[in-house]
């Protein structure tokens, strides 16, 4: 049906529907033979979902895949492997309790009769490690390795495959050092020279310009554009990634922020990374009363970690925090909540809600100690009153507050989490990806709530990886990249280009210097 000698694998109008969302919407995608096929898009654009289909981990809701012109159905990872498709996962999928050669050969063991041939494993693992320029003792436990070394093991597992034709790499460089990235690129060139096709997902735009051959852009689960890398420039990628159709109305502020007192100042905040380096690297910023400060950055830029430091979850962090002019030590979460900090976590289901409790008790969870009578019993009348008030205040659409929390839509669940924080009467509200996983209508409502409380004098910090959103909501935007603060934008300076460029400015800074010297 489909036949083009330059195309190894062709995806035709793939749909993927998850309960509530359409992750992929009629996406067609070609994997070109012997090329580095780059797939880019914002978080949630559907890149990883598409790759999981090709690797046999997920199954399309609709659409067909063709390999060499013939239709294929990949029922699991083993089927994909038989077709010569390998994948390096975004999150490491190794076994920390096993050693290097066991990890490399897991699932395709070498046997001598009934028994394992460990000397063959050991030899084979050594060869693979040599090829990766990472000579290590194959008996080393993988749990004892640095993250970058573990990533190399993950890559090594795929190099074993003799019939490898397509190698999918989902952000393989996110935890590698500059030198390790160069080794990886060298191997990628070797592989493509041998006729193997690579599908490469990365957020690091400069990497794409260096290693990519062909770029395909996805946005909101849809195909947007594709082009050869030699024909395009960075700005073309940024323009297509962000799009122009979707935008939120910006509500003007009535408070003159210049006249507002400073409520929070953070100086030289640093958080060391396990195994070397920094998650947050010497970041300083301030926050005024009633201000909405946006923090923009890519995945792993250190955004959530800044919040975690402010909430006292990392006593090992260094730097100074001043609350209303007084220096404080962020030692524990309970202390920080007491001081007036509140956080709406990124992962609503895992960290924001207690699924077994109803709406009322989720809302009152953080503030419940304020509703005590006689120091021990909960004053249920007072609790109910406060909860009713809050439900009205933030427009949670609910028939009965004793319904289970999961009966609410994602947007309303998020409002409950925000409401829970507001009920503690915070001075500073931290919102980590407040619009994640909720539909566009609910997003606007959440933004309205944020705006409303800021107008009432609450100071808010919002983390978001969605450009349009953060531009619509924040008064001022700080950009983080690779743990470094790479920009602080105000008013007219807040443009898509500025934000995107700053968001990858912190990567491979030594590379950047070399380029500019040329």
């Amino acid at each position: 049906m489909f036949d083009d000698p330059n195309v190894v694998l062709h995806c035709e109008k793939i749909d993927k529907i998850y309960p509530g969302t359409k992750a992929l919407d009629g996406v067609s995608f070609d994997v070109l033979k012997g090329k580095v096929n780059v797939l880019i898009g914002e978080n949630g654009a559907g890149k990883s979902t598409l790759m999981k289909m090709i690797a046999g981990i997920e199954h399309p809701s609709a659409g067909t895949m063709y390999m060499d012109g013939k239709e294929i159905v990949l029922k699991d990872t083993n089927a994909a492997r038989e077709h010569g498709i390998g994948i390096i996962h975004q999150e490491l999928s190794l076994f920390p309790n096993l050693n290097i050669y066991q990890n490399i050969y897991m699932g395709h063991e070498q046997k001598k009769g009934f028994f394992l041939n460990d000397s063959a494993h050991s030899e084979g693992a050594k060869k693979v490690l040599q090829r990766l320029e990472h000579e290590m003792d194959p008996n080393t436990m993988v749990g004892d390795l640095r993250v970058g070394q573990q990533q190399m093991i993950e890559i090594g597992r795929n190099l074993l495959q003799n019939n490898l034709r397509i190698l999918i790499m989902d952000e393989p460089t996110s935890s590698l050092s500059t030198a390790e990235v160069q080794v990886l690129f060298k191997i990628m060139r070797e592989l493509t020279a041998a006729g193997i096709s690579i599908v490469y997902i990365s957020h690091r735009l400069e990497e794409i310009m260096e290693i990519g051959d062909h770029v395909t852009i996805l946005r909101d689960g849809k195909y947007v554009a594709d082009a050869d890398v030699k024909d395009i420039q960075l700005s073309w990628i940024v323009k297509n990634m962000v799009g122009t159709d979707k935008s939120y109305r910006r509500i003007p502020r009535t408070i003159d922020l210049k006249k507002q007192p400073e409520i929070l100042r953070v100086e030289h905040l640093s958080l060391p990374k396990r195994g070397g380096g920094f998650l947050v690297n010497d970041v300083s910023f301030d926050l005024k009363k009633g201000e909405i400060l946006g923090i923009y950055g890519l995945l792993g830029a250190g955004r959530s970690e800044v919040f975690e430091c402010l909430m006292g979850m990392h006593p090992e962090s260094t730097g100074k925090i001043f609350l209303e002019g007084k220096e404080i030590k962020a030692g524990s979460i309970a202390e920080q909540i007491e001081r007036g900090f509140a956080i709406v976590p990124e992962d609503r289901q895992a960290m924001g809600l207690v699924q077994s409790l109803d709406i009322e008790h989720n809302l009152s969870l953080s503030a419940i100690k304020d509703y005590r009578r006689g120091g021990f019993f909960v004053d249920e009348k007072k609790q109910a009153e406060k909860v009713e008030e809050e439900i009205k205040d933030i427009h949670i659409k609910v028939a009965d507050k004793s319904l289970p929390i999961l009966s609410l839509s994602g947007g309303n669940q998020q409002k409950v989490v925000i409401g829970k924080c507001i009920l503690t009467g915070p001075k500073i509200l931290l919102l980590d990806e407040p619009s994640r996983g909720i539909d566009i209508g609910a997003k606007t409502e959440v933004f309205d709530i944020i705006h409303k409380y800021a107008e009432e004098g609450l100071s808010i910090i919002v983390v978001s990886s969605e450009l349009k959103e953060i531009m619509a909501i924040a008064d001022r935007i700080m950009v983080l990249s690779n743990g470094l603060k790479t920009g602080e934008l105000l008013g007219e300076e807040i443009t898509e280009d500025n934000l995107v460029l700053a968001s990858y400015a912190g990567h491979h800074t030594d590379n950047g210097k070399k380029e500019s010297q040329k």
Partner: protein
Amino acid sequence: MKSKDNSKLMMTLMKGRTFIVLVVLLIFFSIANNKFLQVTTLTMLAKHVALYGILAIGMTFVIITGGIDLSVGSVVGLAGMIAGGMIQEGVTLQFAGVTLYFSVPMIVIFSIILGGLVGLVNGFIITKLGVAPFITTLGTMYICRGFANLRSGGATFSSIAGEEGLGNTGFKSIGGSIGIIPVGAVIFLILAVIGAVLLKKTAFGWHVLAVGGNERSARLSGIKADKVKIIVYIISGVMAAIVGLINTAQLAAAHPASGDSWEMNAIAAAVLGGTSMAGGSGTIVGTIVGAFVIGVINDGMTMCGVSEFWQKVIRGFVIIAAVVIDQMQRNMEAKMALQSRNENK
């Protein structure tokens, strides 16, 4: 450098700690009671350890996958009752009006298959119906104990010697000795070797460790995690049935309450031997040493006249202490790994 050597020595001691404890216990009890190191005592000890040890081998596989099998003690009782009943009463086919008697090998095979079936049911409920291992095997624990009692209405089958005329003699020899070595101990040794080889030297063993270490990764690596889990419960059930047979033969009687709470001894042996309850790590050799420690504590204290109630208290302390030391070792290992990594930089 000096402190590093010290910590290395410390690590070696830590790793062999269960073995060291075993030696210390042997010395202690042989001083406390001069009859402890006699042949009769030691053969008795070997008989006891064989029973716990075989159960613990199956339990180790289950715990490594991150599960637990509480049903093994009841399977010991059920398998014993089924075997004892088949010898003493035969199997009566009412519609035909005949009673069939089976040969001992047939009875042994039948009992083992029965144990395997219980394991299969456990594995199926856990993997396909998604019930937690603790709950599933708690349920089958009661079910098997119930059936063990139902088989005889709670009575004991005490004539398991068989009759020449029926061709079902010889069952008792499973509980006998070869020279001074009990048959049960020989079976234990054979099963231990098979278990250790299975875990260390076969792809199945890797898959057991992989499923326990990171189930999601195991599935992504193309490992059929459900199949692996079902097999470990079958292994555990089969081991329990074998223990049921040995125990019945040793006692020369099948009692429906046999094996009551033995699952706890098996779990204790595995944990003492360094198997992590979180799954992903454990060795058969460790488990065997663990089983010996449990056996020596039990028999040693009995011989020294420690009351059974105090024995329970002490056993509880030993288990908790073992896990606490295990945690300390893990923390130390992590620290040392970090140290050597920093030094390599």
